[in-house]
């Protein structure tokens, strides 16, 4: 409603440009798989399992109204508006992980003992704009 009141009347030639600002970004915020093996870090001497680790990551652009699509809090929308209309120095929301899974790891400890441990928040499973 605010946009309709504030924006000047659009001519048919400007309509597509006008509508583009409401479209979802091409490279939208998404979860991307990423896999590494501990041998690549030369940590396979003491990390016995798992052989591979898939932490994943979030990347992409956030839309102007991320709330419904990404479950973002209202503050995200507010910050978006502030950045857009009041102060460009205020950063726009970023595509970041919203949920994580734990990871079990089997390691050889100093002294030769063996440890099985479950660590919190080791694998990103969902992204959000915040």
């Amino acid at each position: 409603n605010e946009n309709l009141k504030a924006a000047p009347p659009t001519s048919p030639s400007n309509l597509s440009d006008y509508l583009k600002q409401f479209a979802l970004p091409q490279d939208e915020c998404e979860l991307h798989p990423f896999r590494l093996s501990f041998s690549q870090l030369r940590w396979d001497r003491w990390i016995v399992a798992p052989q591979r680790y898939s932490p994943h990551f979030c990347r992409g652009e956030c839309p102007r109204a991320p709330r419904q699509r990404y479950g973002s809090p209202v503050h995200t929308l507010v910050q978006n508006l502030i950045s857009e209309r009041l102060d460009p120095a205020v950063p726009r929301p970023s595509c970041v992980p919203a949920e994580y899974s734990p990871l079990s790891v089997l390691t050889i400890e100093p002294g030769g003992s063996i440890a099985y441990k479950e660590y919190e928040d080791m694998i990103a499973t969902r992204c959000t704009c915040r």
Partner: protein
Amino acid sequence: NPRAQGGSEKAPRVLAAPQDAASELSALLQLPRERGQGRALVPPLLQVLADRGPEGWPSQAPRLQPDSRALRYMKRLYRMSATKEGIPRAHRGPPYNTVRLFTPCGECGRRRGEPATGDVNSVDLLFNLDRVTALEHLLKSVLLYSFDTSVPTSSSITCICHLSLKERDFSSQVCPNISHSVAFSLHFDVRKRRWVEIDVTPFLQPLIATNRRNIHMALNFTCLMGDPQGSTTLQNPVKATLVPPSLLLYLNDTSEQAYHRGNPLGHGRQGAARAGRDRGKGNNSQGKRASRQRR
């Protein structure tokens, strides 16, 4: 539709860290020595690994290799406790998030492998539990025995055991005193896996709870083939040498970086807002009840 649910996932185009990224990643993990913002950016597992190395760097020095049998047992435990991707499974029994296996580090008195007197096997065991942190609470402790291949797999074995705990004072040359002992019998069938677990939680819990980290135990046992409850009589003492047992500790790590099952603020952190709202509702009803009771 994951998008309608607020998720953002699609069929993966798997990316993998290229070989030459290893050096870049290692460089990224070369944290400043002072604690602070740098360390806060590092995932908890990597931070733990970085802390172990000398001067804060991941240690590249080879570590003392554990006993192959112990390693095999722990790999089996890992397969039962986690998926192929490493996600912890739900499991029955004590809600552990940490399991530590220690092999005896030294013996007092009779040496390992010394011939037993008659059919009685006797072994002194010393375990150093320095790796157990103050935030790891003991749930269960087990002595883990394995049999060598000379014992037939279909055997039924009965052992009469005498377990005693000894105080160990490294600053003194005085012989250790027996502080606690118990005798018990154990019956089991030697199956394919050849592992026997003896629960010693009542013995160790008081010691570990008081931050005792050097555990000295003496175990005398006689094992016979047969089942006293069944039709077979006890005979033919088991001549097979029992490898000195390992000590298995099931622990609950209460630190922030450990995974806590059933914690609404834990797994996935998806319930943080929901848990907050639920706690709010619960608190209101509980508050009203408490208020009514006070009146």
